[in-house]
């Protein structure tokens, strides 16, 4: 059977077939993990990632469900695995696990699993899988330890360890994980699901290598990486050469009230490659917002990829023309024992800073600043009674894009996340909550020729006492507009008491106690607008009014559109609009 399929090298059809096969192998691993995982955070969100890597540590392919955050971590961590466990020491049936943030991991709850693929007696490739497991200890249930000041408060750290051998699971490790978890059944189930997924992909790669023959398969992989590189380079070559800067100010760190931090980036575009340099970014802090290096690289890669063809396959070739400079000891490359569980904040900051920089290099792809992922967790005050946990996130609106409005409340900004939000009814069966409403926030999208996407407001009424933990940003500094567009609306977390008194929670709060009958309100930020809102198509403004996205006041004030309410159905009063807009000189509007 050896080498029955013809060599993909120099054959445009065979190369296409191998490329598909690699992607599908990763896709299948991802499907298997999702199907058998336990953590509802993972399964309902389809948040399982899978990748194929080679023995040189190169990322070969990843599943479509894999976010860049996860793909980047799988890519970075394989190096640590190989460093501690040289390929020559690996045996068939071995499976490795790790989560060490300083060596490529994300944070404790994101467990990475790798399984070597043997060709003959030699390790040639790896399959890797990753999900956010339910709970692995630390300060706060579910892994949002917003108050962590050191990595030790964020859950169990795993160096690269052997978690299975040809004899099966390594019981010592599994028992250790279980003992350190608030939800031991879930964590063990999740780890088993990860291993099952890695096994499926490994077997598929073994079969493919047999089918093609080792040499032809390896050559096909090399071609695939070169192919991604060449597409990446031609995309980068289309950017105008130059040095571009961007920055993002983080509201606070959750520990030191009032202190804000800046992520700064300089993107140098030269011919067909770029340098992404975070020099000038603030130093790491004794709080959880630091961002492990693999996550900073993922963020940078995502930001850059927004300005080239988004369908370029994600593999090692994409990384070749991009150089990353991450000052050691800064927010984007923390050292032990700095906590990093809140890295989503700095990741988002890095992404928005790069988008800001490159929007100047490639104005026809410009994007205004975006609303964030707003995470929260609700849990019982005491672990003695009924056990429940509502850990989730709500999405902010994205920034307006050249040619189209920012999508409403969606996760793409978070490294292409495709995560879904659970429907409300299932949550009410699991938790003592009534979800009173979930609505788009009117006027939350930043006005612009292309409007920012909408933020969303969710209101939970608590039927029992509970503690609430939050993690977000864009609550003090809203997503800004671009090229004359205005800022979106900042997000908020509120505790509303039965008597109507509102208490605003910080963007990063740990275990705030709520009483039964209180309401917890999550408001996500709206995206910034792009372009002068006075130039927005009046019919689009009218449509927004009908759709409940903007108020009548905003129509007149922010867009200077006059609505003729006397007509049969509301219509734009063209003459009055022209007059309003003609008068609307920029200076007057700002005054």
């Amino acid at each position, binding site marked *: 059977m050896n080498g029955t399929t013809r060599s993909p090298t120099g054959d445009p*059809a065979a190369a296409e077939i191998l490329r598909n096969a690699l992607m599908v192998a990763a896709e299948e691993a991802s499907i298997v993990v999702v*199907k058998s995982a336990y953590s509802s955070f993972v399964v309902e969100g389809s948040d399982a990632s899978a990748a194929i890597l080679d023995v040189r540590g190169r990322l070969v392919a990843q599943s479509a469900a894999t976010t860049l955050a996860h793909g980047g971590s799988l890519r970075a961590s394989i190096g640590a695995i190989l460093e501690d466990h040289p390929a020559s020491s690996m045996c068939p049936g071995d499976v490795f696990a790790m989560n060490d943030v300083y060596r490529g991991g994300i944070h404790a709850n994101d467990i990475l699993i790798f399984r070597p693929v043997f060709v003959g007696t030699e390790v040639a490739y790896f399959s890797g899988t990753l999900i956010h497991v339910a709970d692995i200890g630390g300060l706060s249930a579910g892994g949002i330890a917003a108050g962590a000041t050191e990595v030790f408060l964020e859950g169990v750290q795993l160096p690269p360890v052997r978690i299975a051998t040809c004899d099966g699971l390594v019981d010592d490790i599994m028992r250790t994980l279980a003992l350190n978890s608030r939800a031991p059944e879930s964590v063990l189930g999740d780890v088993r699901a990860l291993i*099952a997924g890695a096994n499926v992909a490994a077997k598929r790669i073994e079969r493919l290598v047999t089918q093609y023959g080792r040499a032809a398969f390896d050559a096909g992989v090399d071609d695939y990486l070169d192919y991604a590189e060449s*597409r990446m380079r031609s995309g980068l070559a289309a950017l105008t050469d130059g040095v571009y800067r961007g920055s993002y100010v983080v509201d606070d760190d959750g520990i030191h009230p009032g202190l804000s931090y800046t992520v700064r980036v300089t993107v140098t575009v030269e011919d067909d490659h770029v340098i992404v340099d975070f020099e000038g970014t603030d130093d790491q802090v004794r709080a959880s917002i630091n961002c492990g290096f693999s996550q900073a690289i993922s963020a940078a890669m995502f930001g850059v990829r927004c300005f080239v*063809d988004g*369908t370029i396959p994600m593999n090692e070739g994409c990384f070749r023309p991009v150089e990353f400079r991450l000052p050691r000891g800064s927010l984007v490359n923390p050292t032990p024992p700095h906590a990093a569980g809140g890295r989503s904040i700095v990741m988002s900051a890095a992404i928005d800073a790069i988008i800001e920089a490159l929007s100047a290099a490639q104005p026809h792809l410009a994007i205004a600043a975006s609303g964030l992922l707003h995470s929260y967790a609700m849990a019982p005050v005491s672990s003695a009674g009924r056990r429940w946990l509502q850990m989730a996130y709500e999405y902010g609106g994205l920034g307006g894009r050249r040619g189209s409005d920012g999508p409403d409340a*969606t996760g793409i900004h978070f490294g292409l996340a495709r995560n879904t939000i659970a*429907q409300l009814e299932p949550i009410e069966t699991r938790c003592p909550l009534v979800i009173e409403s*979930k609505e788009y926030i009117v006027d939350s999208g930043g006005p612009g020729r292309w409007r920012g996407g909408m933020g*969303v407001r969710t209101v939970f009424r608590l039927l029992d006492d509970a503690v609430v933990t939050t993690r977000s940003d864009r609550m003090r500094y809203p997503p800004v507009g671009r090229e004359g567009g205005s800022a979106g609306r900042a997000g908020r977390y509120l505790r509303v008491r039965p008597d109507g008194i509102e208490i605003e929670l910080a963007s990063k709060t740990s275990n705030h106690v709520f009483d039964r009958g209180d309401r917890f309100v999550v408001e996500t930020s709206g995206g910034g607008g792009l372009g002068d809102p006075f130039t927005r198509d009046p019919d689009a403004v009218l449509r927004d009014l009908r759709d409940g996205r903007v108020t009548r006041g905003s129509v007149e004030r922010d867009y200077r559109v006059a609505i003729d309410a006397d007509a049969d159905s509301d219509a734009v009063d063209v003459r009055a609009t022209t007059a309003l807009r003609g008068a609307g000189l920029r200076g007057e509007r700002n005054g």
Partner: protein
Amino acid sequence: MTAPDGYSIGVDIGGTFTDCLVVARDGTTTVGKVSSTPSDLSVGFFGSIAAAAEQIGLDERSLLSATTKLAHGTTAGINAIVTGTGAKVLLLTTKGHADSIRAMAGQGRVLGATIEEILDYSISSRPDPVVPRERVCEITERIDFAGDVIVAMSDDDIGRSLDRIDELGVDAVAISFLWSFVNPSHEQRARERVAQRFPNLFVSCSHDVAPRIGEYGRTVSTVMNAAIGPLMVAYIDRIVQGAADRGLAGEVLFGLCEGGLVPAEEARRHPLGTVQSGPVAGVVGSALFARAMGYENIIVTDMGGTTLDVATIANGEVSFSEENELERQRVYLRKVDVESIGAGGGSIAWVHEDSGTLRVGPRSAGAVPGPICYGRGGSEVTVTDADLVLGVLNPDRPLAGGLTLDVDAAQRGVSELAARLGMSTLECAAGIVEIVDSRMEDLIRRVTIQRGQDPRGFTLWAYGGASGAHAGLYGRDIGAPEVVFPLGDAASVWSAYGLVSLQQSRSFQANALLRTPFDLERVSGLLHDLELQARKYADARAMRDIELVWRGDMKYSLQVFEVETELPDGDVDERWAAELMANFQRNYEGRFGRGSGYAEAGAVLTALRVTVRSPATDPVLRPERAADGPPAPESTRDVYWSETRAAEPTPIYWGPTLLAGVVIDGPAIAEYPNTTIAVRPGQSLRRDDFGNLILKLKGDA
């Protein structure tokens, strides 16, 4: 001339053709095929019956007056959904939740989107909601998960929404409140109010259309049902009346995507259930037919002009999903699992400029303009053009509709593409076919892996116009031992065959959240109520010899995926519960793999379901005359085979001359009026005693 009693007729309307299959009591089949008539689908419907009648030698009235069963799979509903030409719907929903259909549980960006739409930040977006915000009325009311009313329904809000119906001139109303499937009283009262003031308006309630947890999916399903309601009612009436006028002896029954038939009144009430009934009928018919032939595990593939549909049948059973995607929205619709990719004879081949690689699809030339070789204005190379250039398709034999293939034009198209890639014309054509077939192989593998099955233990089943030329290639690499083309050339109207083989059936469901250890008294009560509903339905329909099939949806407490599980017979006691758990664990591991379930966490029974149905009758297999000698090829032509990378003189057989027992060894081509089968080098094709063609993919081990 009088006809013998007891014809059964299936009519399946597709995008291009309307297929009719008439089955006589002795199992004889007759095909009637006419072009579909999009402006009034009923014209093609009756046209196809008339065409079949003519073949038999009867007039339409004589045939219909001797027909006891007329089963129809309609696409009228799905067409309206896809083209957005359904009714203008007003939605009433719980206050605070009007945006549920816009937020789409966060799925909007990825559900049903192409990989490009998912990965490309600059184009990623949500589809429009199923109802624009201005046609959503919020009603003050709230029921909690236990079914208790925690906010009374505001009659004033209802009154205001009735005024909106007038103001906006809507054609249908959807009512979807939170937790209505636990306590439908608010929806029922709202419906009564609407009916009082607008007695002729089509109204759908979510507890009725999609009684299932999850407000977004339930609301979308209800709205879509309402949107296609008015036009489906009119269409169904036209078909029923037309059949009666033409003397139909029996009644018209409508196919459901859950794989049964219902009378007109049911289809009018829940038209969403008829969506995709044609393809589903093909799968269910395959299951019945395969069982009669002794096959337990098959993968069904239907390759047409624009899509490949794939379904699996394990241990003789089709599988179902309760949630599906339709036009990028999540719908709650019990449907036989059929997965599709946009790959078919019409898929377009192109060169990706940046990388200089050959690509196929996802765009399709469809029926119009169609492949270059159809000469209808198509200018882009398609898979069919490649098949023709390779010599697999016969340039001298016109298609069923009389269309002649222009091989020179196809040659020119492919060679132009080949020149840009630095390949020879034949290599390029072979590459196009291999790419499309490898995508099909990927889909087949994905579908089986998703269900925890190993494709190597399955027999491939292939029908649809383009399967014959491709199954030998896409079947080869998944490791299936053989491909069956059921009933040979009749495979080209297989969905109509499937419709004939379906029986009346209807499911009734009770939703629950019953955790282990089960409250057996409650279970018993629910089952009792379900049985009453089912028997009442069967009595009202005068269904005879009914059988009740009991199923439950179950999952592990800490996991999300549900598995349909057979409910044990007998009294609901400890033994019953133990047997249920055993069934569940077996099914779960069968679907997701060994060790994937976590029994210690306990299980949840989320739904109980009974299906009342008339028993399926086994298809009549009619032994055919055996061949008395080896087959003789009709001619020889050069066909390019990628196995040998050369065009070789290849024997061409005229299918209708191949009799039972005949075996032809590849490389060879067997041509039929409606399909062409490629027998690749190393493969062989056999006709069995019942008219099926069996392609053996591997040599004897």
